[in-house]
């Protein structure tokens, strides 16, 4: 038999049982589509994460407390240490090659202006360097100064959405809003930035961090220890060496916290570090998804094997006849193998279409982002082909081993 004859024979046989062929393929279709969609979803998640980390700014170092993770089972916080606001000042003043240092302390309060009330608005207490470090720009008005920060002047910069909701089309600059019981003077409005790093910059308001410490998150410890902060963002000068700056900060903070360099009570990470940590988390998630999808592909393969076994039994006489007119066991094997392969390849092709379409649709309809990875198409389609050969082999072999005399007598 030549290729064309093998192809024709397999094609005719599949066409003669259209519904059955389609149902048999369904397992493979779903399996292949699942592989593609799942990889697209996890790739989309990864892309979102790395983009959002990059969106935090450029050349950033993240300094965070290590203490909360120090004790067994997350242990109680070490009352002695942790990052404080004074560390921020120290880094800015003593380390060379630092373009800006910023820190955030958040609170959630109800805002009032005239008759308009907005509840649970994020108030971000931060430093004058915030715009540099977080890569945001002021649309109108201005950002607060270091002096205002030191003196805890109650000024506020509004996100565009908040400005619109409170003031409509009126100019908010110079007006006063009330957050909880504190009056804040509006000095600026951010340029629209939207969602980055899981934060909607347009739906927050920004004040000097000292205001937040005093008015919104007062703490007993603060008077003795200085105000504690969670994460310090350091923007490194583009000309400076990141690892050198990072080392200098380590030495400085170790000295300030009175700890040795081998048992630091803080972590310094770069964006790349964070991205790779996130990726290792999502990649194990992706592996799990790929396994689930792979299992459904295997189930599809078993479906093909099942139907091919039925088909061999049903067509025993035909097999006997083909053998009688000269088909060798090899010819019979090739015929059934090619039918199984054709089922899995067509199923694989439909699965690819379904997977690509499904990923697109999933991305459109849900809030999750999907990125179709070309390798997932190659991977799933070739697995489908392998599965066709693998699971087609047993039925094909069974057909080839039939004794023509017995097969011809089969009812």
């Amino acid at each position, binding site marked *: 038999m030549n290729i064309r004859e093998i192809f024709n*024979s397999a094609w005719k046989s599949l066409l003669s049982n259209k519904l059955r062929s389609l149902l048999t393929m369904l397992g493979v279709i779903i399996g292949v589509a699942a592989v593609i969609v799942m990889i697209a979803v996890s790739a989309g998640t990864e892309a979102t994460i790395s983009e959002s980390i990059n969106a935090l700014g450029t050349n950033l170092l993240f300094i965070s407390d290590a203490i909360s993770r120090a004790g067994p089972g997350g242990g109680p916080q070490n009352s002695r240490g942790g990052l404080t606001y004074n560390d921020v000042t120290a880094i800015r003043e003593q380390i060379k090659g630092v373009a800006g240092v910023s820190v955030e302390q958040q609170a959630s309060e109800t805002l009032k202006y005239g008759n308009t009330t907005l509840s649970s608005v994020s108030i971000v207490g931060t430093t004058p360097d915030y715009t540099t470090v977080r890569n945001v720009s002021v649309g109108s008005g201005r950002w607060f100064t270091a002096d205002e920060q030191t003196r805890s002047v109650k000024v506020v910069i509004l996100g565009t959405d908040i400005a619109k909701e409170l003031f409509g089309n009126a100019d908010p600059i110079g007006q006063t809003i009330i957050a909880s019981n504190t009056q804040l003077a509006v000095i600026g409005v951010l340029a629209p930035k939207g969602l980055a790093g899981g934060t909607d910059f347009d739906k927050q308001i920004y004040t000097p961090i000292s205001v937040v410490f005093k008015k919104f998150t007062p703490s007993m410890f603060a008077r003795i220890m200085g105000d504690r902060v969670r994460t310090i963002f350091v923007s490194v000068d583009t000309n400076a060496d990141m690892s050198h700056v990072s080392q200098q900060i380590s030495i400085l903070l170790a000295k300030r916290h009175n700890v040795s360099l081998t048992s630091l009570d803080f972590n310094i990470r770069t964006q790349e570090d964070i991205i790779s940590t996130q990726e290792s988390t999502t990649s194990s998630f992706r592996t799990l998804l790929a396994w689930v999808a792979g299992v459904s592909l295997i189930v599809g393969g078993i479906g093909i094997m099942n139907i091919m076994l039925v088909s061999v039994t049903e067509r025993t006489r035909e097999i006997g006849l083909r053998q009688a007119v000269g088909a060798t066991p090899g010819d019979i094997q090739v015929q059934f193998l090619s039918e199984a392969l054709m089922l899995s390849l067509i199923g694989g092709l439909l699965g690819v279409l379904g997977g690509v379409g499904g990923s697109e649709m999933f991305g459109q309809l849900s809030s999750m982002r999907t990125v179709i990875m070309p390798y997932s198409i190659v991977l799933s389609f070739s697995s489908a082909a392998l599965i066709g050969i693998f699971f087609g082999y047993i039925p094909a072999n069974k057909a080839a081993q039939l004794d023509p*005399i017995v097969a011809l007598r089969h009812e």
Partner: protein
Amino acid sequence: MEKELIIETIDMKKVYGEGEGQVVALDGVSIKICRGEFVAIIGPSGSGKSTLMNILACLDRPTEGKYILAGEDVSGYSRKELAQIRSRELGFVFQSFNLLPRATALENVILPTIYRRENRINQKEQVEAAMSALENVGLRDRTDHLPSELSGGQQQRVAIARALINNPILLLADEPTGNLDSRSSKEIIQLLIDLHYQGHTVVVVTHDMGVAHHTERMLMLQDGKLSSDQKNGEAMLSQAIQEVPRGIVEKGVIQ
């Protein structure tokens, strides 16, 4: 000049099973059939004629002895080699036609050509060969019909066309009229006679004397042995002589 031998079996035996349950289906059969002969193999059921047919058809191998087909000893051939011999040298006609139900008459006739190893022909030649084979059996105008749209006689003629398409040196028919009414039977027998006159070597296995007496020569099997080998006229007579007394003996008339 002696005619070319197509079939030669030498003391051929076929035994099924082993030990106690052993069944001897063929017990030393030696026959010779020459090119162009029209032969019937007859015998009651259990006589071993099906077994002989299967071996002659290269579907089975003898346990002992030799089977030489057109000068080639095929007794020890593998399944693959036997399949190739079937493809090259043999054409089959079955009692139950064995047409592929979803293939047209033309496609059914083409089927053996796709398994050819030597002298392969292309698609166009396949169709031409099948058309001429169908013409030869008088079904030129039924080429696109499915088996279910043909009468039994027509289906058997398609099967004969299929058997002839690879120009076999031997045409084997196993009860070719077994599933047919008497009128169709006559047509098929006439067709086999015509093929014989065209020079084909035809072997028919049957228990129907109505078919057998149209052949030139009858080989009669009984209990796995060749009990007679006669030219047609004698065969008829011998059959009558053998059958009648046995019937009487069985009924207890003669002790």
